[in-house]
Structures are given as C-alpha cells and as structure tokens.
C-alpha cells in the first residue's frame, strides 16, 4: 500500500510538477585520501524493490570509464540520456562533493535507497560504495563508505 502511494505521488510529480511537493536536499560525499587519481562517482536511487529509479549526479566526464561504475551501468543500461545535464568533474582524493537539489518528498520513508558507485583509474572498482536508505530519520547522519568514500550524509 505504501509503495502504491509512493508511486501515485511520483506519478503526480511527473504529471503536475507545479503541484508536487519537493524539498532541497544537500548530499555530501567525502572521499578518503586513497592516493590515486580523481574518482568517478555516480549517485543514483533504487526503489523498495531494488529497481533503478534514476540518477542524481555523475562526477566524471569521460563515458568510456562509466562501465567501471558497474552497478549503475548495469541498472541504467549505460544510458547517457540518464545523466544528460547532471554530469560534472571527477572528485579528487580527500575532497568533498556537495550537491544541492530538489528531491521529491515521495522518495523519503518509502523504501528508496540512495547508492554511490566509485571508480579510480588503475585501482579497484567499488560498486555500491555506499547504500543509504532515504528516510527522514537518516537526515544528518554520516554513513561510512566501503572503499573510496570516507563518509556520506544528506541534509534537508
């Protein structure tokens, strides 16, 4: 029932964006000092069933490296259309990527999960470096990553 309501809300957001509820959310991803080149990062969302819902940001400009962001690449089918207009520079070791965007209210507390895949040239790929449930209880909570990401948090 909850997922039906969420789907309904999302559909409404698509059909009548002027009426949809959204809130500005800041996503902060801080990298470790892993001692390598700038990292490619992709932030994307899956729904309660684990199905790909969309991409929020791609940090890294060369599409030939996107296949190293393997979970995202598989989920999005490597489609560049998924990241058109939401692509920027790669992120250096030890730096923080801060993204502020308007996210649909319906994404919160509805089983959605925010993922980040990371890859660095000549180093091991790190799919799903973080996986954070989008819940209001998780706001402001720093979550450690698995390999290149030191911590991730979202604030509203």
């Amino acid at each position, binding site marked *: 029932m909850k997922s039906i309501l969420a789907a309904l809300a999302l559909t409404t957001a698509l059909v009548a964006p002027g009426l949809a509820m*959204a809130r500005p959310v800041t996503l902060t991803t801080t990298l470790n000092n892993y001692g390598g080149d*700038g990292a490619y990062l992709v932030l994307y969302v899956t729904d309660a069933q684990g199905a790909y819902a969309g991409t929020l940001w791609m940090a890294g400009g060369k599409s030939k490296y996107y296949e190293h962001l393997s979970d995202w690449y598989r989920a999005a089918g490597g489609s560049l259309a998924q990241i058109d207009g*939401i*692509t*920027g520079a790669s*992120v250096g070791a030890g730096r*923080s*990527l801060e993204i*502020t*965007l308007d996210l649909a209210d319906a994404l919160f507390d509805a089983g959605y999960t925010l993922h980040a895949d990371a890859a660095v040239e000549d180093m091991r790929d790190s799919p799903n470096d973080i996986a954070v449930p989008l819940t209001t209880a998780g706001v402001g909570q720093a979550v450690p990553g698995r390999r290149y990401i030191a911590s991730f948090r979202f604030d509203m």
Partner: protein
Amino acid sequence: MKTLLIAVATLTVLPTAWALAGEDCHVGRGTWQPREAAVQAATELGWQVEKIKADDGCWEVKGRDAQGRRIKAKLDPASLQVVTLRHGERQEVRERDRGNATTVAPSSPPSNPLFQNGTPPVVRIN
C-alpha cells in the same frame, strides 16, 4: 599583401584550435610511433617510466621525473611531444576540481521523477 593576410588569419585561428584540442590527441593510427619509441622519448626527458598505455589518442606515461616526483604525462603519438604533464598525485586532479568552485549543471536534468521542476543541481567540490 595577400600572404600577410593569410598569415595573420592563420595566427588568429591557431590558438583557438589548440585550445579546443584539450588533452586528447588526434593522430591517424598509421602515424603512431611504437611504444618503445615513446618510452625512449620519455627516458630522454629524464623520466623513469613505470607504465605506458594508449589513452585518449595519446601515449600516456606514468612514472617519476628526474627529481623523483610522480608524473603523469601525455605524449603526441606521432611527434612524441609532451601534450600534458602533471606532477604529484593531487595535482593530477583536473583544474576544475580545484578550489571551492561552485558549478551548476549546464542544462535541465533528465526527466525522471527524482527531480522536481526541472531545477538543475548546484554542485560544489570542496
């Protein structure tokens, strides 16, 4: 007079062409010098080559310079001239990654239900 005009026009256009060239090399496959020649060219520059590969149409060399600093360089595969040279791991990060520059996505985000009102994200790398 005509020759002078052509020379002026060429000099006006060339910097733009170089600027557009960026970090990639655009050389026909048939004109590539072999890997050994690229290693030799790097060695003559005083570099200790640890790794060499073809990347973005260039020979990309990783290793250390004569002072022992870590380097990453791209060589034009035909002329073996240095196209880019960066020292140290942190400096290999692209120029636009430096500082606290705030950037906005250049156009509207894709139409998926995650984004509202087509507002592009505001992005900062600290």
